[in-house]
């Protein structure tokens, strides 16, 4: 029995594509999932979040087997590549969904929403619709909702990929600052080793049908294994 995330002999299959994972992640850490595109980084996150049922193995969090639990009931928040906000709801409502799916919010809940809005730097924008916000502001709302949701594990499937490099770095820093300081465990998919170097404590390499156990970021990037070396190309050294 371990604390944190444990992928116990996990085997995934989707349309002829296979991926296996047998690893555990320490709680409170930031882990980057890195590897060539099409190797199944997003698929791995889908399985952890509960959107894809494994053909074998278990997803365990703090000793609790999640494998049979539907996505909405797992102790997990996920930020997708796009469609992270409901465009017909206000920023406040989008945040409120992190507290109660029924959106029946008490005064105390509303105060919490207000504080989080402030925390992610969007004070006074609560009544806007996502369409009236910039891409970066929308990302802040999504981060704010993950903060409100009080779910210990946060998965990020390249939610900031569409932003420019500067803004992306800013959002990654904010994610660590806001969610990391709240004690959340972060798992983020990225195809950019610089992202990993920037915020990740450890890196999981996904390549050749396998998600490898985490390795400390610095050590990995300084001396990448063969599979990663081929992907990184220029960084061979």
């Amino acid at each position: 029995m371990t604390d944190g995330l444990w992928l116990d002999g996990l085997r995934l299959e989707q349309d002829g594509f296979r991926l296996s994972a047998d690893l555990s992640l320490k709680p409170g850490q930031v882990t980057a999932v890195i590897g060539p595109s099409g190797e199944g980084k997003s698929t791995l996150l889908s399985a952890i979040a509960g959107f894809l049922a494994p053909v074998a193995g278990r997803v365990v969090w703090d000793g609790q087997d999640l494998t049979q639990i539907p996505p909405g009931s797992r102790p997990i928040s996920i930020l997708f590549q796009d469609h992270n906000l409901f465009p017909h709801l206000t920023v406040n409502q989008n945040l409120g969904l992190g507290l109660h799916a029924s959106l029946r919010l008490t005064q105390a809940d509303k105060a919490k929403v207000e504080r989080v809005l402030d925390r992610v730097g969007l004070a006074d924008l609560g009544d806007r619709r996502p369409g009236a916000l910039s891409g970066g502001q929308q990302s802040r709302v999504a981060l704010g909702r993950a903060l409100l949701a009080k779910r210990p594990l946060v998965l990020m499937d390249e939610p900031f990929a569409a932003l420019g490099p500067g803004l992306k770095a800013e959002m990654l820093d904010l994610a660590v600052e806001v969610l990391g300081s709240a004690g959340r465990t972060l798992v983020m998919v990225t195809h950019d080793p610089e992202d990993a170097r920037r915020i990740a404590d450890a890196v999981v390499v996904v390549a050749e049908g396998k998600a490898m156990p985490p390795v400390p970021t610095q050590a990995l990037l300084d001396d990448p294994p063969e599979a990663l070396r081929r992907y990184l190309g220029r960084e061979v050294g």
Partner: protein
Amino acid sequence: MARRPIPLALGLPRWPGAIAAWLVLALTLGTLCIVALRAGTGQWLGPADWAAVRFTVLQAAASSAVSVLVAIPVARALARRRFRGRSLLVTLMGAPFILPVIVAVLGLLAVFGRGGLLNGVLSAIGLPKVSIYGFHGVVLAHVFFNLPLAVRLILQGWLSIPAERFRLVATLDLAPGRFLEWPMLRAVVPGIALAIFLICLTSFAVALILGGGPRATTVELAIYQALRFDFDLAGAARLAVLQFGICAIAAVLAWTVTLPQAQGGGLDRVVQRWDGGRLTKVGDGAVLILTACFLLLPLAMVVTRGLSGLAEMPISIWPAALRSVLVAALSTILCLGLALTLAMRRGGALAGLASTLPLAASGLVIGTGLFLIVHPFTNPARLALAVTALVNATMALPFAYRAIAPELARVEGDYGRLADSLGLRGWARLRWLIFPRLRRPIGFAAGLSAALSMGDLGVITLFATGGQETLPLAMYRLMGAYRMDAAAGVALVLLALSLLAFWLCDRGGRVDD
């Protein structure tokens, strides 16, 4: 140890859709069985039945062929000309679908009927009069309803040809007709023709007024005659099976070609092209003017005659109007409930079957079956309006479902995972995701089913007793009594109510708060 993959969490329950599907199956096939059982063993198909089948298929084929053949030049003219009132004309092309059949027929009678405009002109120049009754009258009315549909769908095809292709063809000095338009038409026209063919197969009110007699009776009209004049359940059931058979064959044919998808917007674009001279411009103008006259004159006659007929209307029209509004409201609620719950099943054979079967069903047989069911418990005549609402909801379901289901699938595709991860299930999901994002298709479907129900002259003709006339029935009875002025007044009221019902619902879906 290998484990079975767990089923994913369902954000929207599937069981309400199952109930809706079985309800529709019971309403369409179940009622048919009840009528057939009650009838016992009847005789096998007689010559009159075959005559009805022949007429039904021939008029549907002719209606479909004429609609499509006329629609091609009209759509081409709309695709390549820009003129004042073009978008109005395109919008107008959407109107006949929600027009009460009996109102349109009255308008057609005013233009093409015995004392109509056309015969006035003909006799003034010494030519013999023409009659609108019979085969060609039925086809004329069907073309009036379906030509606009065909034009809109073919226009979509035209506008889907990228402008760059027209440029390419122009620089190569090729004929756009052969290299661009003919392939497009070959792809879209068969599906459109089959859709119109299917719609015309089950036509009732048009045949009731303009057809009749041994040589101009559709199967649905024959069912009406069997029930109304002879209470011949065996005959009605036999004909209903026949109708299912014909529609099933047509549906299988339709399966082999792709059916067209009606789209709301995007018809405003005009394709710029570089062929054609003055002659084609004159030709396009003539085609458009003739079409506009064909569609607008009957409507104009309804309005002008209706205005002068308003004073002639009996006072009993107003309770009838209220009844029609109530029936339309009830039918709309039922229809939306069925369409939404079926759409929540997100595909699946059961939902597909239930949302298609009503296209082939006879509203009259559904109504008769329902009456036979309630007969042991209560006097069925007292439930005439409720039964009418239920039948109308069933008949409008295929259209409502097709407006809602693809949109719901799209919303679930875009936001389903986010909703799942937030635990948005059941009512909360409907309230915060599905309803807000489906406002437009729901409003459109509601408007469609309200207008269809408001103008429906079907099952009510069989069972309404004294105090249960709906507006279309009251109008039909006035026409039967040759009180044409009063009927014209009612037609105007009915037209206004139908358009208002559609407009209110459709508008409600578009308003952004």
